[in-house]
């Protein structure tokens, strides 16, 4: 028990100096003069506003990715004590003194710097030589595009970091698997794989591609494990269970956790509220919650309500009516009923108030006790300000001639009787006797005479309708569609009999008290769904590019230009590395297919272990490139060069693998091998030279003369900014 006292206490430390040196160089290249330029560079303008929202705890919705990425950036702001007060409106704007530029840019830069030693580790774990591993890390080190991207407040370098971390930890885990399954390090690396994958997904949806690759590799390895008949059934089951927990359950839980923190952090209402449902908005502090707090929950006959369309496209809006009538004859010659217009109006207005009336009685106030409205009840909707009731009839709607016109009925004393009875259907009801609830219930109004359904058509009315949105009665109600569903947003029990009094009442804000809360899952699901469904209009951008241009680096992005001199920052890769990476990929696929065909005919060119190594390296590196690149061909959104960077890192990992393979297996004699090594050294020096030449465009620290800039424009398609004086 006291044995440890008998022996001397010894600490042996193995320090891989090359790893330390690589980390040091990585940090130096990424952190050098990090605060320069002290101005908003390119997409910082986009991420910055979200950081400000985080600092001010204001809710926002961003469809570009899950919240973890924004949170990582915001963490930098938090550490630097950023108060969020900066107007992110224009690229090139000078940062004010309250913006901690260094700490904002620190985390992406660290992630970029650590990718360098990680590349070394990955190649080593793939069982390639120390030399090849050094090569991979050195290539990462001098890749200009990676440097530029990591030195700014952008997310790609963080994404690449987690991608590499996932690959590295899976390899470590896989190598543990052979000699010590279920050991501590085995568990550690397995869990880390899952964590890194979910972090990658959390930063950008693009991370899913690497996650899928890791899952596929793990599935193939698990399949081999199942086939291993030396293991007992229980053992195999434990292996599978551990993998399922680490690679499926942990990522899901973490992903939920990101949203949980996101929603905890952002509790104030903000500019994106309108997109969310009323219930969601009510859960935020300020905004709608201020209005709805204290509203009665159950809608009763006599209630005064505003009705919001659940679909909310093209804009969220409320059922509205006003004094004006439909024009007698439309532009295209069709006639209308000339009754009072009913529209959908995207702003809060006193004309959005409607009174739920019992068709059997005449009063417009809530009786005591209130009689709640239930599913299937017949109601009339009376417009609060004009006391006309919602009506539809067999007249074509102004813009959607297949549907019925909806109006507020004016009795012109002609043979067109009022048809103002609506049957209430609660869509999300629990049972048929459900009560109509404020905010929570989603309801449809089905016209009793024609069984048309009250619907937002989405079309904008012309000038006579003040460009408000058209409301129609949809005769062919095929199934459920959100544009036919409404919910009560503001609500109060009407108390005044007199029209004047009621008008005053409508103008005043509602008050009483009931609190309601959405569960986290409900909020998460809604937020996630809105993020995926949100389609930002894909506009053409000056620097957008197509995936085909990326492989050969036919395009660049100008990130920043000094306001006075011609110092500038570009996202521009090291063209030697890009071209040779693509070449390496081609060589790899040719060699692989050659080997595969020969093996099929039972000719084994490579020893078994070399072959397995070659295949695993290819699946991870070439596969990583493919999954991170090819899906872009199917995407319809605006694409930029920086979307290629994750794929590029995998290509860089493949390069030394292929080079070493050529040297080991294809060079027959020692002489050939020496010549090849010399060639590789020459090639690497040229890459260094290119990197050094492009350095002014990477760091933007040196103002070049127009002549020098022109000399750097190696491809006609590169857009390098030259000031005209």
């Amino acid at each position: 028990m006291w044995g440890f006292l008998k022996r001397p206490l010894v600490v042996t430390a193995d320090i891989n100096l090359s790893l330390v040196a690589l980390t040091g160089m990585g940090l130096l290249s990424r952190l050098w003069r990090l605060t320069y330029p002290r101005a908003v560079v390119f997409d910082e303008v986009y991420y910055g506003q979200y950081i400000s929202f985080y600092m001010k705890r204001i809710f926002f919705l961003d469809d570009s990715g899950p919240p973890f990425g924004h949170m990582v950036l915001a963490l930098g702001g938090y550490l630097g004590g950023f108060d969020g007060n900066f107007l992110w409106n224009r690229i090139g704007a000078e940062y004010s003194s309250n913006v901690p530029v260094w700490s904002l840019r620190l985390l992406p830069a660290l992630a970029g710097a650590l990718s360098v030693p990680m590349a070394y580790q990955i190649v080593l774990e793939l069982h390639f030589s120390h030399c090849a591993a050094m090569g991979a890390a050195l290539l990462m080190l001098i890749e200009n595009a990676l440097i530029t991207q990591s030195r700014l407040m952008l997310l790609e370098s963080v994404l690449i970091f987690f991608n590499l971390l996932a690959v590295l930890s899976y390899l470590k885990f896989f190598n543990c698997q052979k000699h010590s399954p279920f050991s501590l390090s085995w568990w550690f690396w397995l869990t880390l794989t899952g964590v890194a994958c979910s972090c990658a997904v959390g930063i950008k949806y693009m991370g899913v591609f690497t996650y899928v690759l890791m899952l596929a590799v793990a599935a193939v390895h698990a399949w081999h494990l199942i086939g291993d008949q030396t293991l007992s059934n229980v053992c195999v089951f434990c292996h599978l269970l551990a993998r399922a927990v680490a690679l499926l359950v942990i990522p899901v839980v973490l992903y939920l956790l990101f949203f949980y923190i996101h929603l905890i952090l952002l509790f104030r209402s903000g500019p994106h509220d309108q997109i969310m449902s009323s219930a969601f908005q009510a859960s935020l502090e300020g905004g709608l919650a201020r209005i709805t707090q204290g509203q009665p929950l159950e809608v009763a006959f006599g209630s005064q309500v505003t009705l919001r369309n659940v679909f909310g496209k093209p804009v969220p809006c409320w059922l509205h009516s006003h004094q004006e009538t439909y024009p007698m004859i439309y532009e295209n010659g069709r006639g209308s009923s000339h009754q009072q217009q009913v529209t959908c109006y995207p702003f809060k207005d006193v004309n959005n108030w409607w009174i739920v009336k019992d068709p059997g009685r005449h009063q417009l106030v809530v009786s005591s006790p209130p009689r709640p409205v239930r599913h299937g009840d017949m109601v009339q909707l009376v417009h609060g300000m004009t006391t006309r009731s919602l009506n539809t009839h067999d007249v074509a709607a102004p813009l959607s001639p297949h549907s019925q016109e909806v109006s507020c009925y004016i009795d012109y004393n002609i043979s067109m009787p009022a048809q103002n009875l609506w049957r209430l259907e609660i869509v999300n009801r629990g049972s048929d006797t459900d009560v109509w609830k404020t905010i929570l219930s989603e309801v449809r109004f089905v016209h009793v005479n024609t069984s048309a359904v009250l619907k937002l058509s989405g079309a904008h009315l012309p000038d006579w309708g003040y460009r408000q949105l058209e409301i129609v009665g949809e005769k062919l109600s095929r199934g459920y569609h959100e544009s036919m569903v409404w919910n009560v947003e503001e609500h109060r029990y009407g108390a005044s009999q007199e029209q004047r009094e009621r008008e005053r009442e409508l103008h005043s804000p509602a008050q009483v008290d009931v609190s309601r809360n959405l569960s986290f899952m409900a909020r998460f699901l809604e937020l996630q769904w809105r993020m995926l469904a949100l389609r930002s209009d894909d506009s053409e951008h000056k620097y957008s590019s197509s995936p085909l241009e990326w492989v050969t680096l036919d395009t660049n992005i100008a990130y920043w230009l000094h306001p006075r001199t011609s110092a500038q920052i570009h996202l521009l890769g090291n063209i030697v590395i890009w071209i040779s990476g693509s070449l390496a990929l081609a060589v790899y696929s040719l060699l692989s297919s050659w080997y595969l065909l020969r093996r099929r005919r039972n000719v084994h060119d490579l020893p078994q272990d070399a072959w397995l190594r070659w295949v695993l390296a290819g699946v991870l590196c070439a596969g990583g490139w493919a999954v991170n690149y090819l899906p872009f061909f199917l995407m319809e959104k605006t694409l930029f060069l920086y979307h290629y960077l994750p794929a590029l890192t995998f290509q860089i990992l493949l390069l030394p693998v292929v080079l070493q393979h050529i040297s080991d297996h294809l060079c027959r004699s020692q002489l050939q091998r020496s010549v090849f090594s010399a060639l590789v050294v020459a090639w690497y020096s040229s890459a260094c030279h290119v990197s050094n030449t492009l350095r002014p465009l990477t760091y933007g620290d040196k103002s070049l003369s127009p002549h020098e800039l022109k000399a750097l424009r190696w491809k006609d398609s590169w857009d390098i900014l030259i000031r005209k004086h």
Partner: protein
Amino acid sequence: MPPATGGGLAESELRPRRGRCGPQAARAARRDVAAEAAARSPKRPTRGSRRFEAAGRWALLALVTLLSFATRFHRLAEPPHICWREVQRTEESSPKDFSSFCLFFSPQMLIGLAGYLSGYDGTFLFQKPGDKYEHHSYMGMRGFCAFLGSWLVPFAYLTVLDLSKSLSAALLTAALLTFDTGCLTLSQYILLDPILMFFIMAAMLSMVKYNSCANRPFSAPWWFWLSLTGVSLAGALGVKFVGLFIILQVGLNTIADLWYLFGDLSLSLVTVGKHLTARILCLIVLPLALYTATFAVHFMVLSKSGPGDGFFSSAFQARLSGNNLHNASIPEHLAYGSVITVKNLRMAIGYLHSHRHLYPEGIGARQQQVTTYLHKDYNNLWIIKKHNTNSDPLDPSFPVEFVRHGDIIRLEHKETSRNLHSHYHEAPLTRKHYQVTGYGINGTGDSNDFWRIEVVNRKFGNRIKVLRSRIRLIHLVTGCVLGSSGKVLPKWGWEQLEVTCTPYLKETLNSIWNVEDHINPKLPNISLNVLQPSFPEILLESHMVMIRGNSGLKPKDNEFTSKPWHWPINYQGLRFSGINDTDFRVYLLGNPVVWWLNLLSIALYLLSGSIIAIAIQRGAQLPAEVAGLSQVLLRGGGQVLLGWTLHYFPFFLMGRVLYFHHYFPAMLFSSMLTGILWDTLLRLCAWGLASWPLARGIHVVGILSLLLGTAYSFYLFHPLAYGMVGPLAQDPRSPMAGLRWLDSWDF
């Protein structure tokens, strides 16, 4: 169409290497067809019983086919008016317009041919769904589609029989398809789907057949089925682009096949090479040749100009008789003073156009609109002038001066005498581009009217050649390029397309133009015939137009489109005809019993398939019988599941408008899977309970109850397909009252 290779089964047992219908599978299957008592005994059935058995198989096939035809042709003539998409189809195949150009081809030719033979005169103007056919003979066309649609059932029957070697599985599949109201409805109208599905199933059947001939390579049946696969593929691709999926499936199957042969060291490389060549010949060369041949016929038949001309490029139009470019003779090279029309090279953009209307208030400068317009019009005419003089170049005293690459020119609109003009105002729709307007009075404007003309393909020298030169117009002051964004302007722009000047100098077809009409009295006219594009070019272009046309399909007013996830759960049908309770209503909806059974089967298949696969991978020793059944499940079922996957999941990636009927090819595969799965599962059950005296009955009872269940559900739901009159299903008086199981069904 011979039935399953009943005799071939016994031989397949001798085959050592092919597993697809390997010995176990064959054994398992023979057990079913042979006298049940002889199941485990080694003795073979006698000659007489085999002949009897073969006759039985033929009879069963005949029965299945007959039933299929009977259901498809029953009440084919109703309703006597146009249903849903029949509008589009009949329009394009009516003999009157037979030779006018349209965007779709061979299926229309087939339908058109059927209509022609049955006396349809093409005088009926197809306008909108619900129009009566009256005395027009439409039965020929409907009958043709129903005829092809009827073959689906026997094809599926034979495919499943070959994959599973089990009559009961095949019968179950046939029943599912015969009694599916959706398939039935789709086959009864003049639509492309029955034709497409016919070819898909034919390709699948012949592929399966040729797989089972693999033990006798290069024999006559082997060649027959291989080339038949190729022919069917050509047909499938010719009908719709959905045919690509079956090509993919056959391709994957062939690659796996070749990979297998390549690894067989007993075969020499020469033999493998022969195999490869045979497949290239039959599966690539033959279909391509047929496909191109149909196109050639199509172009020969449809050689007259029609309303769709504007979609095609100038050179293409030149070969349509009736088009003004056909056999026209116009001056070859552009000179100053020429009156021209300028066409965008991108398909379906049209001609550079201007008219006497200004951009409305608030949208750029209030100057004259410049748009692109798809139809031919006097407002498409522009005069090409020198930038610095306004003198009339047509004055005979001036020598002819040709326009050259790099010249600075001015384009004057002929009708309004305004110059093509651009300036630093944002374009109406594409905000990052500059606005293009018509400016100036009688040709006098400012320096913003100057454009540099550039020829992109300079193989014709520096002059600008009519029709063939691709030109770009670069605005001199701002350096932007004239282009069309392809976006439709609002009402103020008469819904023509937006023209902008893009500051991004990327080379896209949107900013490249060619000169189409050219009038210049001072130049000699040359015949345009020499300019006609070659056949491959025509082929390519018509495909581009079709692809663009397909992706540009917008949902019609008031038409609900559906999402791919709706389909397998039969969420929503498609209204073919009739709305109100007095109308004759036809509603395309799958038989819910069949569809939900299919859905359940897919889940069950994945479950049982993975259990068996894991058991095999763990090295479990399966009894011979179970091993045979699992082979059927994994291989036969796997093929069909692949088919379902390939015909279903790509739709999730498609941006175009999708309808319910797109799922039906996948549904065919799904039904085949159901047949194979239930038959195998019931057999496994029966085997597992072999000690129990009634075990044998389980299989028979199970299959029978499934057959009767589908038949009964068809009896319930048949009004959907054959049409119904009377109150809607919401109404308790309706005969369909209890059958509206989902709220989203609308009949």
